[in-house]
């Protein structure tokens, strides 16, 4: 189909996909180094890698500054205030109402991992909303790696908590009170289903986070593209108003998706801990 207007599909793809060029205001560009290779695999940094490092650094700064403020005011016998209070509220919420509530009595061991997951995903999502920012979690490889860490945590913690025999019982699932041919049949049917279930849960985590982040940016970019297609002032005014609303929604979705990822990971860990 011939396009007489601007190439909106290409513009959307260029703005949401990974690239080897960092961009800034006034046409500033920084070409990232290429050709770094580790055991024959290309590990040269890209835009999403830079923004992931930035998010990790911001998480470190947040926790250090928040912790310092809380400790200083605790030494004075007062409760925290300002930035420290915000950090404390979020950390206590994730630690108590998400990690420990869903994992049960062994929850404190997993709280650091769940907190890291939540803050890292939150900062990655929020950095994508800045001008010239990129959403690292809008990259299937990044969310896939996060879901892979969740998968390893869930399975290894389940293996340690239940022992090898108990862990095998979660795969070869036999309901109570069935023996003989019935048990064998149930095992034959349920084992592939259980294995598929174990693989599908991290896959769903990956896809949910990636699609939520990317879809929001697609809608915003498509609406802005409408301005260029029509080239008229009333369309521009309506489009910009709608884009402002969509960015507020994106802010909500950033928080919500980080919370959902942390929540589902802790629910799955809790399910493995209490399988017996």
């Amino acid at each position, binding site marked *: *189909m011939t396009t007489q207007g601007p190439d909106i599909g290409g513009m959307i793809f260029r703005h949401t996909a990974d690239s080897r060029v960092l961009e800034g205001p006034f046409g500033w560009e920084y070409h990232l180094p290429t050709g770094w290779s580790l055991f024959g695999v290309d590990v040269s940094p890209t835009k999403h890698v830079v923004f992931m490092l930035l998010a990790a650094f911001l998480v470190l700064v947040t926790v250090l500054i928040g912790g310092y403020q809380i400790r200083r005011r605790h030494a004075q016998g007062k409760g925290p205030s300002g930035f420290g209070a915000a950090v404390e509220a979020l950390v206590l919420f994730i630690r108590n109402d998400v990690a420990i509530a869903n994992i049960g009595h062994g929850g404190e061991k997993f709280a650091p991992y769940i907190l890291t997951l939540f803050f890292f995903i939150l900062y990655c999502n929020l950095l994508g909303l800045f001008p010239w920012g990129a959403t690292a979690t809008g990259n299937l490889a990044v969310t896939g790696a996060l879901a892979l860490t969740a998968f390893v945590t869930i399975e290894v913690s389940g293996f340690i908590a239940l022992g090898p025999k108990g862990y095998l019982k979660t795969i070869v699932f036999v309901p109570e009170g069935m023996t003989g041919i019935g048990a064998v049949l149930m095992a034959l049917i349920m084992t592939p289903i259980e294995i598929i279930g174990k693989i599908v849960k991290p896959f769903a985590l990956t*896809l949910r986070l*990636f*699609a*939520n982040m990317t879809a929001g940016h697609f809608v915003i970019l498509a609406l802005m593209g409408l301005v260029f297609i029509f080239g008229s002032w009333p369309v521009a005014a309506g489009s910009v108003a709608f884009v402002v609303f969509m960015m507020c929604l994106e802010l909500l979705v950033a928080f919500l998706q980080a919370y*959902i990822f942390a929540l589902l990971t802790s629910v799955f860990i809790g399910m493995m801990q209490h399988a017996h």
Partner: protein
Amino acid sequence: MVNLLMMLQDGQASGADMVAAAKNANALLGAGIGLGLAVIGAGLGIGRIGGQAVEAIARQPEASGDIRGAMILTAALIEGVALAALVFALLFKLL
């Protein structure tokens, strides 16, 4: 199989072009219809959750915190399915 999308295109010259255009047009049509159906399903599901959660809060206001948490979790799970359909539709566009 000729459909409306192909008729809206300019006349293609060679046969191979037409076949490729047919595959592309049909794939995009299928992706669009599939995505619409997925969104209908998600809308129905999340609408039901919202309605029943509000009803439950009206029956027992002191459980509203628990109900709100369960509602958000279930809505996010259903939205995950609809967005999986979105990702596969994008795959049709790119392939």
